[in-house]
């Protein structure tokens, strides 16, 4: 992605444009408005999480009244555990595939619906609708659609593809593809809305000026829309990466991490290790390492994308 010569460098800058640059925090006063929510968040999320993190240094099985502190042994084990490595690789594949597809499709839909087609409001609502449904319910619906004798395969059979033509959830590779399809289908609406908002913030004058210069649609997208969507790209990429790295509901419902370990993500591994196998201390260690990993990736991404935004502007 090179953004070396965006149109803003050449086009006349509209007078209201500078007002849109990111605002600086207005000082201490804004913190008082955040405080109540922050306190509630700390009480129900941060403090219990921090308290729970202690178990990562113990051998607690989740039930026994006694436990022993074993230092960093759980972390050492996690780094050597081939199942953790496998889950990390699967998680990375999911995060990458979901981020790329969600953003490309979301952006494409936003561009399509930013035009003056008559049914655009209907389509916006329709495409955003899956976002408001609980992921578990969406995953269950897709599970039935994608099952061996489900609707998708029935349609394929009717079209002459043979009975049970595609093993959507039973083939290790197709299972990965299916989870990505279901997740992107549900979340592309969020990316679309954020990109749509970004597109509507771009001053019309820039396009008018480009039209006068005889720019093609592709040139306008490449030199106006995409560079000025940089803040929307930052939000979307960071959100979809974090969601991809935390992926649980869709995997758990569709495949339970299978076949074998083909779709086992870090989140499903943590769940199984703690609640099914009963290794609570070890699972907490994996979860803690995962938290640090997700935080590092999202902060790194954020820093890089913010830098890119500044460069574009």
């Amino acid at each position, binding site marked *: 992605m090179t953004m070396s010569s965006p149109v803003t460098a050449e086009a006349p800058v509209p007078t209201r444009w500078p007002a849109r640059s990111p605002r600086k925090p207005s000082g201490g006063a804004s913190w008082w408005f955040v405080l109540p929510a922050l306190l509630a968040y700390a009480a129900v999320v941060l403090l219990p999480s921090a308290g729970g993190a202690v178990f990562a240094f113990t051998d607690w099985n989740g039930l026994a009244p006694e436990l022993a502190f074993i230092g960093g042994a759980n972390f050492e084990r996690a780094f050597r555990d081939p199942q953790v490595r496998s889950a990390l690789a699967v998680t990375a594949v999911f995060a990458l595939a979901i981020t790329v597809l969600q953003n490309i499709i979301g952006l494409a839909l936003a561009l399509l619906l930013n035009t003056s087609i008559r049914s655009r409001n209907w389509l916006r609502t329709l495409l955003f609708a899956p976002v408001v449904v609980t992921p578990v319910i969406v995953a269950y619906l897709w599970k039935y659609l994608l099952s061996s004798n489900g609707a998708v395969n029935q349609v394929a059979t009717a079209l002459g593809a043979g009975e049970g033509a595609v093993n959507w959830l*039973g*083939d290790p590779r197709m299972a990965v593809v299916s989870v990505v399809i279901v997740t992107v289908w549900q979340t592309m609406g969020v990316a679309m809305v954020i990109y749509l908002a970004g597109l509507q913030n771009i001053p019309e004058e820039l396009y008018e000026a480009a039209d006068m210069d005889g720019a093609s649609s592709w040139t306008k997208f490449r030199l106006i829309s995409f560079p000025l969507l940089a803040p929307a790209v930052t939000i979307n990429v960071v959100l979809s990466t974090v969601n991809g790295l935390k992926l649980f509901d869709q995997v758990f419902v569709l495949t339970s991490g299978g076949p074998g370990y083909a779709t086992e993500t870090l989140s499903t591994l943590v769940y199984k290790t703690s609640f099914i196998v009963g290794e609570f201390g070890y699972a907490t260690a994996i979860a803690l390492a995962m938290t640090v990993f997700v935080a590092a990736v999202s902060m790194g991404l954020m820093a890089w994308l913010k830098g890119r935004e500044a460069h574009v502007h």
Partner: protein
Amino acid sequence: MSYQVPMSRRSAVFAVALSALVAGGASAAAPKHDFSVFTVSSDKAALEAVVAKFVERYPGSKVRVNAADADQYQTTMRVQLTSGTAPDVIFTWPGNGNSLALAQVGPAGYLSDLSSRPWVKRIPDKYRQVTQSQGKTYIVPMTETLIGAVFNRDVIEKAGVAIPKTWTEFLGTCEKLKAAGVTPIALGNATPWVTQLVDYALVPSTVYASQPDFDERMAAGKAKFAGSGWTDAMNKYLDLNRRGCFNKNPLGTSFEESLQMVGTGKAAMVIQVSGIINQVRTFAGHDRFAMFAVPGADDAAKVLIPAAAGSGYAVNAKSKRSAAALAFVDFLAEEETMNLYAKRIGSLPAFPSATALDDPTFAPIRPFVESGKGVPFMDQRWPNAKVQQVHFAVVQELFSGATSVGDALGRMDAAYTAK
């Protein structure tokens, strides 16, 4: 799975209240009991039926029944036990194998010692070990669950197939059913716990028939899965798949779909636990189903079946209503109650009962039960819940061609010896 939350307290309480009204004329001297009980979804209807009988005997009692799907139950109950919010009577799996089995929960001190209850001496010897932890009895076992081939009588009769007695005959049955245009065996290996059942059906014959002390030798480190009769069982499992005895895409087929296939006659049988027969009947709308032993050996005398205490109830050690809880557990151990419970979930009662065996559903497998040819479920004797999880995963990998039998069993051995 874990998101099915069929926890309907209201319906249960209503049923109980209704029963109490019906039984309004009973003796006024009977004590009233007020307590809660939490069970798994598959046992909910059976539990509600016996709770209604309990309230008939003790009019005015209030019993709050709660249920959740097995995975959800394990998660929820572990949290409730550790946070001191568990109900008075707790469904607990006998033996070991999952995180809410007796061997996991018992030593942690969350359950009451029931060793002095009058029914303890009636627990069959084969179930003593799986109902005890460190020498004390903690659960009343309710059902004897069998694993075998639940078959659709109409389909089998139409295809002109006799019940097979040996492995070779079983393969012949499979071929005849295929020739008749039906799927011989429905297999829903997309649902993790289903993956283990064919192995469990075969291992009694391939392992325990020649080595009855296999579990003790495993525990002593003198035997391993790899190189044992488990290899034979897994190869037979894969052989059935290669021969086309299962439906297409077993890894993409769920547990529910497999039952539906047998219920509707699309498949002839499903290798499953006896407790699912009622669900198959529901799909079918008739009850022409029965269960036969899966013959895992070519010597009919060496064919054994998996038969284990399937459901159990324990009393919460911290219960504030332990008298009521104990009264209920004693009631569960009565022959009539246990028979009713077992019949409702399509299993046999844990305590031997001649009347229960008369059920025609179990006629083909009855000789195995009566002659003591049952072997406990393998996981009930495993040292941790991890072996079972690895077993689920490796069977799926075997079916997708991602691993070999030797590697699969090697990983189960590693999980067995893991600390």
